């Protein structure tokens, strides 16, 4: 059975389009993450699914039922908000019971559901406290509890970890992941943090300016980003990009940019043929650049001047200036000693290069494996 289906969903505020033609099928028990920068329409889409925002066009169905005109209370969903949204004038227990009491669930069943949720989230000692007596992490756990007790068809998470400090955020991320196994429910999680998206999602939807950019598993997005935006958004440190002109040279394409020239075999990059005489953006992840000179046809070399090193303990990141721009090299042995200004030679395997159109959607020029 299907969890949530969005068909051509649109949201307009007057003349401004917040979400454009959103199509997505979320399977039962799947955990989908909407990720993108602020204002990309991810929260708006979530609020449309929740019924808190009217839908301008298209249809949304939950468990096979079109919910466009249903009140939020009739959609059988539960939602966790960024600022917890706990009822401040009620105890934690009453917060958990509120939704069930509204649905006239028998008291014994409510008590049972609360006990179960409290056990799962380890909030038993907090049940008689007021929300403002709890820490941020505890409050968010209560908010999760409020969802669990209801046993809804879909969980909606609207940036639930953004208000927590870094350490707590990492911990709650793990707890949500664990919760998925204990309470498997279709979930939609909105975040602007790509680490959260990568670690939590079965599938990730990357959005920008109200338009869905790509849908895929974390690895698909990482390995084959559909366009330059996805490539730069997913992965940390962000992907390096270099502008290069394309020329045809026998069986190869010759790419040349500022301080950088290399050849790529035609048969591996057939789409590049359309870009001959134009510019493309070549992207490579900092982790895919290795120190040393390229050996053989399968590799391309990049040489530049070392500007800065960032020591992280388990690795160091080198910032190397090639032509006019800086590229980062990650995963460098932290024991190695470099002097600023030194010439650094690096290389990357051809299969790790990502090529993108220079204009328009900056779509990926897919290579053939």
């Amino acid at each position: 059975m299907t969890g949530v289906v969005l068909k051509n969903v649109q949201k307009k505020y007057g003349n401004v389009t917040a979400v454009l033609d959103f199509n997505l099928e979320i399977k039962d028990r799947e955990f989908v993450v909407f990720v993108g920068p602020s204002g990309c329409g991810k929260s708006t889409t979530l609020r449309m699914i929740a019924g808190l925002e009217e839908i301008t066009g298209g249809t949304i169905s939950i468990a096979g039922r079109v919910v466009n005109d249903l009140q939020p209370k009739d959609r059988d969903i539960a939602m966790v908000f960024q600022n917890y949204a706990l009822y401040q004038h009620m105890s934690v227990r009453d917060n958990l019971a509120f939704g069930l009491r509204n649905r006239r669930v028998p008291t014994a069943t409510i008590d049972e559901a609360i006990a179960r949720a409290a056990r799962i989230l380890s909030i038993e000692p907090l049940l008689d406290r007021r929300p403002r007596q709890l820490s941020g992490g505890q409050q968010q756990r209560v908010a999760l509890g409020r969802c669990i007790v209801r046993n809804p068809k879909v969980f909606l998470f609207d940036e639930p970890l953004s208000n927590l400090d870094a350490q707590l955020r990492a911990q709650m991320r793990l707890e949500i992941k664990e919760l998925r196994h204990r309470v498997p429910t279709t979930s939609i999680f909105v975040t602007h943090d790509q680490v959260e998206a990568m670690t939590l999602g079965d599938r990730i939807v990357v959005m920008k300016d109200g338009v869905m950019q790509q849908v895929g598993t974390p690895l698909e997005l990482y390995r084959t980003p559909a366009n330059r935006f996805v490539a730069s958004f997913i992965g940390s440190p962000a992907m390096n990009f270099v502008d290069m002109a394309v020329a045809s040279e026998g069986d190869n394409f010759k790419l040349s940019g500022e301080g950088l020239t290399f050849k790529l075999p035609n048969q591996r990059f057939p789409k590049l043929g359309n870009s001959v005489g134009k510019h493309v953006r070549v992207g490579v992840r900092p982790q895919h650049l290795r120190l040393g000179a390229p050996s053989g046809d399968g590799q391309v070399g990049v040489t530049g001047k070392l500007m800065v090193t960032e020591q992280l303990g388990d690795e160091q990141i080198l910032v190397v200036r090639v032509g006019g721009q800086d590229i980062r090299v990650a995963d460098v042995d932290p024991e190695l000693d470099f002097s600023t200004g030194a010439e650094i030679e690096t290389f990357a395997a051809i299969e790790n290069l990502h090529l993108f159109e220079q204009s328009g959607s900056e779509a990926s020029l897919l290579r053939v494996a």
Partner: protein
Amino acid sequence: MTDVSLAQQRSVGFFGALAPGGARILFIFAAIGVCLIFAFPVFWLLLTSLRPASEVFNVQSGSTITIENFFEVLEQPVVLKALFNSFLIATLATILSLGVTATSGYMLSRFRGAIPNTWFSLIYVFRCVPYVSWVLPLYFVTINLGIFDTYWGLLLPHVAVHICFFSWIMKGFFDGIDPSMEYAAMIDGCSRWGAFIRVALPAALPGITALALLCWLYTWNEFLFALILTAHEVPILTVVMAQFVHEMGMEWHLMSATAIIALAPALLITIFGQKYVVQGLRI
């Protein structure tokens, strides 16, 4: 701030010239002085109310203390009726105006569109009109509606004024409450209206309590509307008090006794409600 910078700050200006602790003592004296300035008339009023009629002009030197004045005013049916009326009008005006301002403030805080905008502009315009200039038109309106010198004739103008003044304050209270709490309630099974009643309203309760106390006190103390919009049928305490000044002279002792009686509930509310007012106006 470090000790050094504190010392530097102390050494400049008028306060710097004082001995250590001098600024503190000066502040205490100033505070006591201000309190005395405000408390003295009340104290004098109390003294006057405890003096026989013949001694009200030498309150400070006489020695006769009597509570006869209180019995005398409380024996007058008009005073008793006025006490009851003032209490009723203040209480009803508070209930009615808060009922309207809670919903109106909530609307102004949460909804956008033509209706809230028009309502907001209307309130704004009415707030800009001087209070005094409302009285005469209201007098004619109440006469035409046939409600002059009735409970409604005084109650409705009070409620109208309160709605204009308090909707803004109430909007502020709701602005301070996170709307996602109401969204959560809507997902948890409430309608939009239910989310307001069961979640937003209880969350704003400290503010509403403070407003209720202020509204009650304001109506209880109000004089101008009561003077113009009522006559003999609905005597109001503040007006009755002023009526001890008449052609035969001024009955200061009786006026003072009535004033002390009128002061009592206000004083009690101020003392016991102060906590709520401070707490409520802080959210």
